[in-house]
């Protein structure tokens, strides 16, 4: 087992578009929470042969934990697991959740990569998103992180947000580039069920417009490419040498173990989720039980579908050998239509094919 994910489900304010398992801290006993995660880490250490390459602290907002609690979590983790082989240790950070000393502590505890949730640089879009930071807060946080000397700082952006103009999006890209992050994730806003945004979409207050999405997507592709960022996955751009190893592991179908409430794990064709209820999670671990819920056994066909869906997203592409004989006709058809090309035994999407990755994946499967 080479990849570890730790889910910290706290956010100071809950964003109306977000469907991750998270909640405001309320009166969650934080010390008990940290102990619970550490207890779970200990169990994982017993159950799996951990040879960790990557660790990822995500959320929620990991930095919603106080410096003291976060430090206890980090040291505790190192006491229970061998992290010496870790090549990438990422932590998600929200603007306004970090100080110089917290950043230094994180750096000292081995975190070498930051994913900073900026989302947008204009106030109007930030307001639509319900974010609790102003553009300058985000910039300040960015400099704090830089000063602390993390090997890689990545920023998250979102596009095609209601009311966001193409100009505003270009401006967001521009200002992001000017900060010279090592990595940029640019996500098309997705209307997730059980979110306020989805409700508004359903009521007709918001609309999904594919043409607009395409324009925003290409704006990012062109601007980031010409600024020297390589498009290595549909939503991800990196300076050479700064791809996210942890995320690439997901995209290539490798196993990973998740800790914390609501986290997912996949090990040996088995996938499950931890109970998405922080209090129950703490109780279970306090009483020495596992927080894992019954999951699903993945069939070969399901894994194949996942590989189509994920590997086509990557710059390397989908191994041609995964395509069965009757499906090969579609490789030719979609090739002729300029959506993909085959190189070194891999099917890669062209510029025209990239924003159509799901459709291409479906077109290729069971053709």
């Amino acid at each position, binding site marked *: 087992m080479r990849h570890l994910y730790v889910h910290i489900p706290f956010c100071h304010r809950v964003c109306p578009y977000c469907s991750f398992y998270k909640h405001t801290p309320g009166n969650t006993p934080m010390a008990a929470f940290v102990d619970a995660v550490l207890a779970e880490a200990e169990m994982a250490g017993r159950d799996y042969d951990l040879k960790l390459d990557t660790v990822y602290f995500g959320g929620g907002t990991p930095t919603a934990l106080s410096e003291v609690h976060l430090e206890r979590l980090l040291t505790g983790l190192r006491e229970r697991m061998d992290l010496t082989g870790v090549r990438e240790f990422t932590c998600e950070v929200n603007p306004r959740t970090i100080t110089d000393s917290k950043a230094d502590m994180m750096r000292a505890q081995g975190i070498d990569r930051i994913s900073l949730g900026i989302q947008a640089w204009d106030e109007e879009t930030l307001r639509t998103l319900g974010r609790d930071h102003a553009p300058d807060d985000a910039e300040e946080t960015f400099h704090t992180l830089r000063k602390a000397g993390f090997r890689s700082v990545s920023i998250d952006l979102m596009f095609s947000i209601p009311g966001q103009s193409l100009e505003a999006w270009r401006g967001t890209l521009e200002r992001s580039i000017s900060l010279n992050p090592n990595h940029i994730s640019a996500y*098309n806003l997705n209307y997730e069920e059980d979110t306020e945004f989805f409700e508004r979409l359903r009521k007709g207050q918001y609309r999904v417009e594919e043409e607009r999405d395409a324009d925003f997507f290409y704006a990012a592709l062109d601007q980031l490419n010409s600024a020297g960022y390589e498009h290595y996955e549909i939503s991800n751009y990196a300076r050479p040498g700064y791809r996210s190893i942890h995320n690439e592991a997901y995209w290539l179908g490798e196993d990973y173990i998740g800790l914390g409430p609501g986290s997912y794990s996949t090990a040996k064709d088995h996938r499950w989720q931890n109970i998405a209820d922080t209090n129950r999670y703490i109780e279970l671990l306090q009483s020495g039980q596992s927080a894992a819920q019954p999951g699903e056994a993945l069939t070969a066909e399901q894994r194949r579908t996942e590989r189509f869906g994920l590997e086509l997203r990557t710059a390397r592409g989908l191994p041609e050998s995964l395509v069965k004989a009757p499906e090969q006709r579609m490789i030719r058809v979609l090739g002729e239509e300029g959506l993909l090309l085959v190189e070194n035994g891999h099917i890669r999407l062209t510029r025209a094919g990239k924003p159509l990755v*799901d*459709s291409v994946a479906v077109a290729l499967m069971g053709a």
Partner: protein
Amino acid sequence: MPIENTRNFSIIAHIDHGKTTLSDRLLEFTKTITVREQQDQLLDAMDLERERGITIKAHPVCMNYKGRDGKDYKLNLLDTPGHVDFSYEVSRSLAACEGALLLIDASQGVEAQTVANLNLALQQNLHVIPVINKVDLPSADIEKCKRQLEDILQLPADEAVPASAKMGIGIEDILEAIVAFCPPPKDPGDGYLRASVFDSIFDPYRGVVSYVRVISGTIIRGQKVRLMASGNDSEIKDLGTFRPKMVPCEKLEAGDVGYIIANVKTTADVKIGDTLTESRKPAPEPLPGFKEIHPLVFSGIYPVSTDDFEALKLAVGKLQINDAAFTFMAESSAALGFGFRCGFLGLLHMEIVQERLRREFNMDVISTYPSVIYDVRKTDGTELQVDNPTFLPPANEIEEIREPIVKVDIMIPNENIGDVMQMVMDKRGVVNNTETLDDRRVLLHTVLPLNEILVDFNDKLKSITRGYGSMDYEHAGTQPAELVKMDILIASEPVDAFSCIVHRSKAESRGRQLCAKLKEVIPQQLFVVAIQAAIGGKIIARESISALRKDVTAKCYGGDISRKRKLLEKQKEGKKRMKSIGRVNIPQEAFIEVLKNN
């Protein structure tokens, strides 16, 4: 009961004039049904009949009635459909009767099928009793109806019974009129059994049930009987009358209407119109049979899922058992796979069959654009009949194509003459003459290609005349026409399911219309898709569907890869419900949408 006390009558009228509702009242008045059994349009037993509020099949019922004269009467009523597609049901019912109630909706007056159905009754020498129904309506105009009875139908207006089937007004008067004016059946009295089979159905529990009208002799259980046309011998297992459910009885005698169940296997063995007689002592000659009915409209019916072909085969077979007018033959289509070329009496009949397949047999079907049957003479002198555009020979091999034509009588208010004539002309028809019916209405005698009146003719007529126009039609042979086959190409692939035979003068507009419709219903694909209409190799209309540009749900799914997979699986599943035409995937709904709307 002596035969003098039996009365057999049909209720006939234009569609919706209230036949089935009147039947309800007659059944109630004669206590054939109990209060508890009462429900509106009781005889419309099929779900479809109830939902659409129309009668599709003729329904017989036997009632007992004590007349004002104190005598007991046996009344056999046959409720008939009003829609022109089912006029053969009316003819067959009339053949079992001596009289007919002709209903006229007091607010509508005489309409086209009033005339047509009256003529059917008169041809069979039936006594016709006019009933002016719906007198409860504020818009009822009894005087006008009486004038029309005299002027248009040449029936004595003073014999007309005013009634309201809905409110139960005039019901006893109607029954008395039947007793008084409808002649009792006449028994030739030569001792031979003669019974006319006027319908048959397949009951899953009891097998083939034949509806009979006994002309002479007696039918009893255990009797050995013969169908004279087919020569089949069998034994009577059960018999009875409709009340309105099937109730067994001891015997059916001259003048009676009822049912028999004999040991025959399939309805194919019981030809409608055949004469039932005794095997031991067959009648010297059969009764006059019915005119054979031929389907006029054809359409391919295909299972949405190709795996369902066998199930569809079973279903159409079963349907035909209860619907002799429906025909089918296996065929295949490059676009739709294996299915059946089916024949119908008209568009309503077609819709009903499709609907029954969906409901009663749970079949998901697609049907192709309805077509008529064309007589084609090739340049080499050979002749063929084409009911499927796919089989039309190439234009250079065709000497002549003849299309079926129909005589259409259109009854309309004076003020709509101009518009209706224009419509007839637009539909390639001719108006032979115009008959003035009274001071407000005219009857246009027209001839039109059947093909042109199939789909929207009646709807257009209704809308031009604000509901006051009505029509009736009958087959009138064929005539040569300049017809061409139009193909639809999607991404350069011809899609046979969309091919059609059209008149040259209409090809272009039809082609444009079809292309536009297809553009609307075919979802965007990963690439630009051209839609073209072509005659021979020549493109006469085109549209193009722009390519999809973006679909990614670009969210980082974190570890929740299952979620992503489920989305893909759902789309893969959706693909199974699509037909792939070359490189284009067309959802079944698109076929249905286009084929139903054109």
